[in-house]
């Protein structure tokens, strides 16, 4: 393989003594670490103003391998954060590392290894899908012949094999979302940033798109940062989540960490009549709720022991006994989140207000 004879002086940070380092060599440092400790994105204390508006108020973000959801209401700073990760803007304060590189100093190198699908639906209407995707592949440095082959392949992968020669202006919103996804992965990036990729899709198209995103993370081995304000989507496809509110990160981690809670109680399901168990738990003073065959027992760590003991005493056959998991919606609500603009000043942060009903509805829609 030839080396990067044309690499840019701006990417001197990734040159070695023999010249330019290969993109794939650098990339492989970040691939194959799924489940490891390597963070794909690390941002610390990032502050960004747009005029007098504070878009990011000291955000600390750590995105691990796999599919990560970037959650937040409209105006919470998601798109601004994506722009900063791409090196399109400079943060006013703080530092950012994407794939181990500083995007403000090595922007071209970062962007060569990152795919991006923007939020807007408008694409050049008179350009064929395959021409558009090929052009983006070439923009990211692929030779013309390789770009042509990969453009067709990747459109096939996203389910547009038969439609690839159609002009973009004649495509439906769902098809255009797929084209945007195709152009984001055509150059075999290490990380792909998807800004609201299910916007404007009907439920069936949304399911298909989410399955595709999951496949990109699992089968293609590309790390995904999925920006969305729809909790359910992130819950379905992501390995982890970063929750932004008013320009700051209020919660982040793997989905299992976010959802699991040692204070959330127990879910239990038994074969047969569960009324004796309900009575026994009530006698022990544990609040319980019933939904279908499932019994939700509230309480701390001790609740698990109590339930286990009562099940054993009553000799009830157990179908399910597990810690109760919170939905992301509950995580959101427990953080006391509201959408809207960032706090007016970092120095004097205001305490978060109680969530408004309409905003919660939007977030969980």
């Amino acid at each position, binding site marked *: 393989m*030839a080396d990067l004879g044309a690499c840019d002086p701006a990417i001197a940070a990734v040159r070695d003594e023999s010249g330019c380092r290969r993109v*794939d060599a650098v990339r492989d440092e970040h691939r194959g670490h799924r489940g490891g400790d390597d963070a794909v994105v690390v941002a610390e204390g990032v502050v960004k103003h747009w005029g007098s508006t504070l878009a990011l108020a000291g955000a600390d973000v750590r995105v691990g391998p796999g599919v990560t959801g970037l959650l937040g209401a409209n105006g919470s700073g998601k798109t601004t954060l994506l*722009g900063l990760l791409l090196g399109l803007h400079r943060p006013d304060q703080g530092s950012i590392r994407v794939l181990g590189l500083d995007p403000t100093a090595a922007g071209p190198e970062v962007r060569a290894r990152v795919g*991006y699908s*923007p939020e807007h639906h408008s694409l*050049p209407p008179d350009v*064929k899908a395959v021409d558009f995707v090929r*052009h983006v592949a070439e923009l990211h440095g*692929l030779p013309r012949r390789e770009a042509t082959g990969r453009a067709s392949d990747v459109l096939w992968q996203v389910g547009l094999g038969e439609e690839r020669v159609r002009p973009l202006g004649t495509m439906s919103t769902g098809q255009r979302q797929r084209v945007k996804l195709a152009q984001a992965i055509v*150059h075999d990036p290490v990380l792909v940033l998807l800004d609201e990729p299910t916007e404007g899709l009907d439920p069936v198209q949304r399911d298909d798109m989410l399955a595709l995103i999951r496949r990109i993370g699992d089968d293609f081995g590309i790390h995904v940062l999925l920006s969305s304000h729809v909790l359910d989507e992130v819950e379905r496809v992501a390995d982890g989540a970063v929750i932004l509110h008013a320009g700051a990160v209020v919660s982040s981690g793997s989905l299992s960490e976010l959802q699991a809670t040692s204070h959330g109680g127990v879910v239990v399901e038994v074969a047969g009549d569960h009324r004796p168990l309900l009575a026994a738990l009530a006698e022990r003073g544990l609040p319980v709720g019933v939904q279908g065959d499932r019994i939700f027992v509230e309480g701390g760590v001790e609740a698990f022991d109590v339930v286990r003991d009562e099940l054993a005493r009553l000799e009830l056959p157990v179908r399910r006994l597990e810690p109760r998991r919170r939905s992301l919606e509950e995580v959101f609500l427990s953080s006391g989140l509201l959408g809207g603009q960032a706090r007016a000043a970092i120095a004097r942060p205001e305490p978060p207000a109680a969530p408004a009903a309409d905003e919660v509805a939007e977030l969980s829609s």
Partner: protein
Amino acid sequence: MTVPVPAGDAPRARILDRGYRRYSGPRTQVRGAMVTTWRQSVQRALGLRRSTWAKVLPIASVLISYVPAIVFIGLVALLPEDEFIDSGIALPTYGEYFPFIQAALTLFIAFVAPEVLCTDRRTGMVGIYLASPLNRDTYLLSKAAAVVTVLSMVTIGPPLLMLVAYILQGVGPDGPAGVAATLLRIVGGGLVMAILYAAVSLGVSALTDRKAFATATVLLLVVVSSVFLGVLVDVADLPDAFHAVNLLIGPISLVQLIHGEPLVEFDGLTLPFAIAGAAAWTLVGATVCRVRYQLLQVTR
């Protein structure tokens, strides 16, 4: 679709999934991104790989700009030399060519840059470009190079055609040195004109997402600057040097001066003034364009 298979020759395999291929080959980084942006922009401006309607205006403008050159070449080729001299027809010099194609040239400069620049912002492509190894400056440089390339088809192409045809017919410049000097002047003058008009039209195009507004504004700017300065020089009796900032007369006069031809109508407009006028417009256009793009928020 069912493909008939000859009996006894049943297919043994079929493609269920092509899989996702890794790419581990070389990448061209910023230089490759600039080249592909330049190529795509040239194609877009000329309507290539687009509908027939998109090709009509650029191809018509280019063809019209070549018509006078073809006519002059035809006259030289068809009329015998003595008959041609007797007829008293004076062929235009290379510097005098542009007034013949002023309308086509103005129309061409008014729609090329808006097509190349406004379309990207209107369709959101600028966000995709800037999410590639390009940054704002390299993106603009590629776009400017594309506009200059396309404009050069009109500002360099016709005089170059005339030169080649005249040489073939034996009425061109004398000797290799004469040919080289003329060639240099044609390319230099054409490039200066293309760069000047590219900068002005890119500056205007950077201010609006709508191609029609940008095209109309470029046309207005060219016509109004010409009329306003013409009146100012005539009525206020200002020196001819003021025509250096006239967007019609200035560039055409500059090309004539580059060819070493005297300006009969505007003898006060000398080469230094003409260069200063062209440089001023180029600087203003380029600065407006760059500042606008530095301030552009592109992730939405």
